[in-house]
Every structure is written in C-alpha cells, then in structure tokens.
C-alpha cells in the first residue's frame, strides 16, 4: 500500500473507532467532507501539523498513522481465538445492534477498566 493510502486508511480506521462520521470529523477540523474523503483515500497529503491535530481529536499519536504493519486483530486466525474467550462473542454480538457512538462508549469503558485494573487479571 502506498504511503498516503496507508495514512488515509489508518485515519479512516481511527475515525471509525472514535465513532465519528466523515461529516462530523470534517466539521470539527473545518474541512469539507470531500477534503476529508480525499485524505482518507490517500489522494491528498496530510502534513505534520494537520495530522497532529487529527491525532489529538481522535486520541492517536502521529506515529499511529504512519505504522507499516496492519492491525493483528484483523487477522482472522487471531479473531477466531479471541472469540473463543469468555463473553467476548456475546459482547461483540450485542454491540452489533448499537450505533457507532454507543460502541465507542463501550470501548472507552473497557479501556477505562483496563487502566483502572492495570490490564486483564
């Protein structure tokens, strides 16, 4: 994948994880939706200050957008193993019925729990 396609792909992923639509993020940034779409498609280049600002809004460091490796959870073998663990399949099944913003709240809650307990026990 070319550099800016990869950056755009990671941007889209971060936006979706944050439960924001293109329209919502574009509005916060002061971009048009079509500009943001071009960034996500890798058709326009984002530079240091722009990506730093987006990272601040989406809670990601600038390096997140530049990493070469794809996310491991996307690997279907890993995913199958993860789904066999207690409750995870049920959580995922229930979360499917929710809107992206609600899913983001649950993700935030899980991350808060992990931070509080110092990770899984």
């Amino acid at each position, binding site marked *: 994948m*070319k*550099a*800016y*396609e990869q950056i755009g792909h990671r941007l889209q992923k971060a936006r979706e994880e944050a439960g924001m639509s293109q329209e919502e993020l574009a509005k916060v940034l002061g971009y048009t939706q079509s500009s943001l779409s071009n960034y996500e498609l*890798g*058709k*326009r*280049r*984002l*530079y*240091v200050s722009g*990506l*730093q600002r987006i990272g601040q809004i989406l809670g990601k*460091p*600038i*390096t*997140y957008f*530049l*990493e*070469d490796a794809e996310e491991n959870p996307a690997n279907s073998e890993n995913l199958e193993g993860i789904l066999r663990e207690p409750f995870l399949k049920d959580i995922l099944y229930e979360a499917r019925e929710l809107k992206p913003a609600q899913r983001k709240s649950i993700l935030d809650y899980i991350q808060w729990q992990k931070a509080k307990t110092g990770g899984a026990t």
Partner: protein
Amino acid sequence: MIAFEPTEAQLALQTRWQRLAGERLHPRSLEIDAAPAAGIDRAYLDLIAEENLNALLIPEMYGGVPLDRMSLAILFEELGAGDAGFAAIFAQTFHAVAGLLIGGTHDQKQRFLPLLLPPGGQVACFCATEEKSGSDTSSFATVAHREAGGFTLNGAKNPIINGAHGRFYVVWASSDRERGRAGINTFIIPGETPGLAFSPYHDKPGLRTTPTATVFLKDVYIPEENRIGPVGSGYLLLMQILDWGRALSGALAVGLARTAIEEAIRFAKQRVILKRPIIKNQGIGFLLAELVTELEAARTLVWRACRLVELDRDHTVASSMAKLYASELAARATTEGILILGQSGYRRPSLMDKLQRDAQALRIAEGTSQIQKVIISSQL
C-alpha cells in the same frame, strides 16, 4: 482565481537579480564548470554574504527579511538563469531552513537560523537521500539510537549538496527500522559536531558549480533538544519540505530553460545561411516559437504551485507538475539549443554545453521525472 501579476517589489527583485546573475554568476560559472570538482567557490560565498541572500528565507524575528513564495519563485528563476548550480546551493539551504520553519521549536529556530546570516557566506545542508534509498524515503539506513538525553547517529548521506560547508545539517534517520515510516526522525547537527566527516567532492557531468559529497555520521551524539518535530514525524516533515521545494526547483529549471532559449534565439538571429538568418527558416523559427510557449507554460505552473503553497492549499500535484514540466523543458530546450547552435554549442567551453549537462541533473534532483509522475498519478 489565482493572480500571477508580479508586484512592483517583485519586479524590482527580478531586475536586481537579473543584473547580479549576469555580472557575478554567469561568467564565473563557466570558469568553475571547467575546473576540477571542489567546494563552494569563494565568489559564490561572497555573493551570498554581500547580498544577505539567506535572510530572504528567514523570519524577521530571527534576523531575516523573508520573501513570499511568488517572490522566491522569481528569485529562483533569476538564479537558475544565471547559474543553476548556484541556485542549487541556495536551494539546499532553503530545504534545511524549511525543516526548521515547519517542524522546529522557537528555541531551535533562534539557535540555528541566525547562523546563516553574515558575516561570511553561509549555507546549510539537507541530508535525506542515501546511496541505496534514493527516492525511497521510507527506508533510511542511517540510524539514530536513543541514549541518555539524546541520540547517537550512524550512517552516510549521499549525495549531499554543499558537503562540508554546512553551518548545520538537517538529517533524517531511523530510530526504529521495524516501524518503517513511523520510526523516522529528523535532527539538526551543528557543523562542527564530532563524528561528522566528508568524502572528497564528487566529479559529475552537470551542476559542476554545486559541490556534492558524502556526509558520514559516526557516533554523532545529538541532544534531545536537536530533534525536530513530534516523535516519528520525520517522514511527514520530509514530504512537506519536498512538496514546497519542488515548485522552486521548477522555478530554477525555468531560469535555465530561459537562458538556453535566449541563447538559441540570439544565435538564430545572427547566424546567416543562404543570405538570411536561420531563425527565418520555419524549422528553426517554429521550434523556438514552441519553446518560448512552453517556457510561459512552465512559469505559469511554477507560479501557480507557489501561490497554492502561499495560500496553504493543496499543492502536492501542482508542485510536482511544475518540477516535471520545467525540468523536462530545460532538457529539451538545451538539446534543441545545441542542434540550433551546431558546432558552436557542441564544444567546451560553451554555454549551451554547460546548460545541457546542468539540465540533465535537474531531471534527477529532488525526485526524478518518473517520481513526479508517480506523485501526480497517485492523486488522480
């Protein structure tokens, strides 16, 4: 709508540098071109100092009198018209300064930018390219290992314009090669730092007035405060500098092409065969008509790209188009120029011969023509 009409101040800048280029660059460049490879010519360093040239790149708060992008485009065209090699020396300083302007802190700018001001003619070095990476800016072999309070750099940058002359070096290195682009950082290295070493100056066919050398880094310690930009932002910083710089490379190429076309026109008007100047032959006259038309088109592309940079609008493709079109024109104009001049151009020393060798280098430097096409096509 983007306006392209130069202001009075820009016209004055153009007139001044047309004169200086004619008097101080053009004649001297032919002498340096014919001499063995060496460092920056003393006359060139004197011109940088006397004209306080670097101040035109530096914000007022750091002692400069900065030009806007359009004015820089006009300046670079005149420098390129006088000697593309001198323009390349100055462009190298521009690139290093751009790194600081984009990613540097106030403290970094305050410490390093005034070093480029007189006394003396000063230059800086932009150290991204490597022998094996070339245009692949995601895989640097130069590494930066984290140490207490800073980094230790090891590797080699090649070819680096201005070589051993740099007051400071802006260097790209990988702090974590496994992380690819996310592991790249940018550092400022003062010129006298222990561990910096240089090869002899390279011999090359074109841009012979621009010294290039390999910059070696052996256990060069750089404190944390000399890292530019956020952690892992080196790749993005490099892309932004190159996107800015390509428009100005285009301006430089327009200047070179203009000199070649003017020389060809001058010759074609003077050279009489079968009782008439050869410019009256349509084979020559039409060719020159095409070249001057393309020159106008190239300049318009350059000015448009510079305006887009100035307006902070998307300029990636515009910069690449300007660089691609202008450098290809420079190559074509000089090749046709030699044909028009015939044996008068195909000898040494001759201006057209030098221009042709310089023009080939412009097709390679700052991303080859193929790389420009990759950039343009990737955004279609």
